């Protein structure tokens, strides 16, 4: 432990890195850490910052992280450079905005052969909104395919930034890392703040550490944070006493205090991250700030789905695993849900589809659970004839249609970058998904289209279609863009006239028949023939819009069963009995739960 004195404001530079996946953000971060001696070569492992396995595999940062670098600049002074690594995905747009609010500038990293992508653009706009000084960096300049001049032009055309002073580097080889560090010092403004003013620190992110409890990442705006201080979280009014103050180098190092402009962490005996809301303002209990920092909003899940264990015996384990994940990620919600078709599970809310996938994957991988997810649903605002509004994210909660005045659904504004040759297919996809074109521009041989789209059309296999149409070359980003009335209906799937709760969906009337038919056909193939004919129907209210029939079994009998076969065949009965326990009865027929599971699995593919 060592005591670092508060750093003077003009020696601090706080910056974020904005980049598309694979454009080299993490590699650049590694080089910067190395160049400033943050870690020895021995400690250096590739992509230090993305510490979760899934983060590393997917190249996505989920939690914000910081690294404090000490850089001796050419002017002879030593500067503290705080690198803020932000979540890089649209699902975490709010978290990104808070990370950006903790910095004064950004490095805009663009692959010199690939050019600007949709994700880059969305984040750059956020950085511009946060009044950042933006330094364009062209990475992978060493590659033969690099076209720095074209990409600079594109940055100017598409983003409207002056790219003439863009820094050309290769993070992989370490080329011109010095240039990046010098630009940070020279081009980024130092932070401002008043160490004498009442404490105001931005809660950037938090996570659960099994030894330390909740660790909060902070950026001090005014005042000073020190051990023993009694703080208050302004959104909830909760008070805590600071136990530790420190910075990441990227190793955690204790310091005495953090002053204005500084970035670091505190611990304060807080038990769950749910109590630490991203964007909240931390102030001092004894001398609170009059106003919190601007921009705080509570996180609201956008996409919901049911999560059910394939094996009912895993229910308890799923519950415990969700609780463990939630310790570290307060942005997803869950509550118990019981389905007649799937048994016991949970209804979960997520920030977006990627967030859903990440949680599902972590449950399956880290907790070794085999899960089934029901079709993702957005949050509908259902206005009832009595003048009240209910937010519905589970089709089974849909009020009686006669009590509904109108239903509003969330829309998004989507930005898609795509090479020319796939543009036609992408436009067709957007139109098919009820999209309304807002903009179409070209930058070189790439088109940028902006569409308004209903979110419920996007949660249903939109990414997969986008990827396959563009052979993986399209990039996509969106932000929520308000609610709008839609002709939405509840579609039920009926098996022998009884609804299968897990397969109900809320869908636009124009899409109901198509979706209904697809589901009926799928189930028809999955449900084995039985003694009785099985009718599979899709229905809106009492109206049948699609129907399939599983014909009754005509022959199913063992040809031979003699004295030597009895034991073996009885053992088969044991299996049949086990299987019966997983059957769901619909009238006279029993449908294996596995058929519904398979129908949902296929739906997710």
């Amino acid at each position, binding site marked *: 432990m060592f005591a670092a004195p508060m750093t003077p404001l003009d020696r601090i530079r706080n910056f974020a890195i904005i980049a598309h996946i694979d454009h080299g953000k993490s590699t650049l971060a590694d080089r910067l850490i190395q160049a400033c001696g943050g870690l020895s070569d021995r400690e250096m492992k590739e992509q230090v910052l993305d510490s979760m396995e899934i983060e590393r595999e997917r190249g996505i940062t989920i939690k914000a992280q910081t690294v404090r670098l000490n850089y001796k600049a050419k002017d002879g002074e030593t500067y503290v450079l705080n690198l803020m690594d932000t979540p890089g995905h649209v699902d975490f747009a709010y978290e990104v905005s808070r990370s950006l609010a903790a910095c004064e500038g950004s490095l805009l990293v663009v692959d010199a052969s690939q050019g600007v992508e949709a994700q880059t653009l969305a984040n750059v706009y956020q950085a511009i909104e946060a009044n950042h000084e933006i330094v364009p960096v062209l990475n992978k300049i060493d590659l033969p395919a690099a076209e720095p001049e074209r990409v600079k032009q594109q940055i100017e055309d598409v983003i409207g930034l002056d790219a003439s002073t863009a820094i050309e580097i290769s993070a992989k080889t370490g080329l011109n890392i010095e240039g990046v560090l010098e630009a940070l010092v020279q081009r980024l403004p130092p932070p401002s703040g008043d160490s004498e003013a009442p404490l105001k620190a931005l809660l950037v992110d938090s996570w659960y550490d099994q030894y330390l409890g909740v660790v909060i990442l902070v950026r001090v705006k005014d005042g000073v944070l020190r051990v023993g201080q009694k703080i208050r979280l302004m959104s909830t009014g909760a008070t805590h006493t600071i136990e530790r103050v420190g910075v990441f180098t990227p190793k955690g190092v204790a310091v005495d205090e953090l002053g204005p402009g500084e970035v670091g962490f505190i611990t304060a005996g807080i038990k769950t991250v749910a109590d630490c809301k991203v964007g909240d303002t931390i102030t001092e209990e004894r001398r609170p700030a009059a106003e919190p920092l601007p921009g705080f909003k509570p996180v609201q899940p956008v996409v919901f789905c049911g999560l059910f264990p394939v094996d009912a015996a895993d229910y308890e384990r799923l519950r415990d695993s969700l609780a463990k994940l939630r310790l570290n990620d307060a942005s997803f919600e869950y509550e118990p849900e019981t389905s007649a078709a799937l048994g016991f599970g949970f209804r979960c809310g997520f920030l977006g589809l990627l967030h859903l996938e990440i949680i599902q994957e972590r449950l399956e991988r880290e907790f070794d659970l085999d899960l089934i997810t029901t079709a993702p649903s957005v949050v509908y605002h259902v206005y009832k004839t009595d003048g009240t509004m209910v937010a519905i994210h589970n089709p089974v909660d849909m009020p009686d249609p006669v009590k509904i005045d109108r239903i509003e659904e969330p829309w998004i504004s989507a930005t898609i970058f795509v090479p020319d040759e796939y543009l036609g297919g992408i436009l067709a996809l957007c139109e098919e998904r009820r999209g309304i074109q807002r903009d179409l521009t070209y930058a070189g041989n790439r088109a940028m289209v902006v569409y308004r789209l209903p979110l419920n059309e996007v949660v249903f296999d939109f990414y997969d279609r986008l990827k396959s149409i563009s052979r993986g070359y399209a990039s996509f980003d969106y932000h929520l863009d308000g609610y709008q009335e839609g002709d939405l209906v509840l579609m039920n799937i009926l098996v022998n006239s009884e609804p299968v709760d897990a397969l109900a969906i809320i869908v636009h009337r124009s899409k109901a028949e198509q979706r209904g038919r697809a589901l009926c056909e799928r189930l028809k193939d999955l449900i084995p023939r039985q003694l009785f004919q099985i009718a599979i129907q899709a229905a809106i209210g009492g109206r049948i819009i699609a129907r399939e029939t599983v014909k009754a*079994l005509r022959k199913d009998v063992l*040809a*031979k069963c*003699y004295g030597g076969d009895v034991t073996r065949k009885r053992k088969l009965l044991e299996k049949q009995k086990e299987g019966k326990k997983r059957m769901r009865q619909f009238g006279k027929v029993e449908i294996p739960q596995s058929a519904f599971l398979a129908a949902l699995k296929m739906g997710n593919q």
Partner: protein
Amino acid sequence: MSFALYIHWPFCRSKCPYCDFNSHVRDSIDETGWRKALLAELDHFASETAGRELATVFFGGGTPSLMSPATVASILDRAAARWRLADDVEVTLEANPTSVEAEKFAGFHAAGVNRVSLGVQALDDVALRALGRRHDTAEAVRAVELARSRFRRWSFDLIYARPGQTVSDWARELDRALPLAGDHLSLYQLTIEPGTAFATAQARGELRLPDEDTAASLYELTQERLAAAGMPAYEVSNHARPGGECRHNLVYWRHQDYVGIGPGAHGRLTENGQTVATRQFRAPETWLDAVERQGHGTEERIALSSRETAEERLMMGLRLAEGVAREAVREAVDESRVRDLVEAGFLADDADRLRATAAGRQRLNAVIGTLLRSD
């Protein structure tokens, strides 16, 4: 309660590609040694079931017609000495319809065999080759005719729903078969059993069985033709003129007692009101060693729970047209499902018997699945 003896002869000249029975091909067989061992095991079981009367004896395999009539005779003589043989005892021997084996029919008859069951399998030379059989149609027909001249009762097996077989193909084959039939016919739908050559071929996509609808049509045709010929099904795959039923096999389906000797043979014996299931070592040499060492080759002897016994009775009894006593299967059956099945015409509405209708027998796996109590 009838009491039966089954003797398993585990050897064949060659292994048929559809067969998953306990059959083995050996270059040479020490028949004297095998006879001694079978007799020893017979003695062993006889000492446990002393005083009972054998209603039926069945030589199965493998290919028991490869045994010498002398071996068959010594086993039957020993059985008669250890138990009592019923006056009308039914003694069946399975035989391949080749000329070599048919020549031994007189000897088997003299030994005490009074019924033969011939593995004809097809009356179509192409099909016989595909089924890996060593005889052709003409030879099989001669063997049936010889059996008819030697035995009062004879039966033969046919396999249908073979790859590529159509309903009219099968109708023609049945037309040829019926005039050859005695009091009994076994007509089996080809079933691909795991671990057989056919299973491998099927996995490779080289063997395609008729689909369910064709298989159903073939089965329905079989029922119609045989009923019209006065040989209705008394069991899923077995047809007889009245009184011509195989009494030995009825012992299995009625879940009565039987002793099984020889490699892989199974038995069911009632002891103190409980059913005991016996199983002999399956591998011929392992069984032989065990018998030589300890006088029997029993690998497993398990007392079944009353629930398991009821399940076996349900599974076997519903195969029979006569069904099964309700009381005997009460523990295995979910009574709440009976009504649906009766209404749908898969079960008959008898007060004291549970009986599958013809339509129910055709879908017996699903009927049993529905009836089975799972709690």
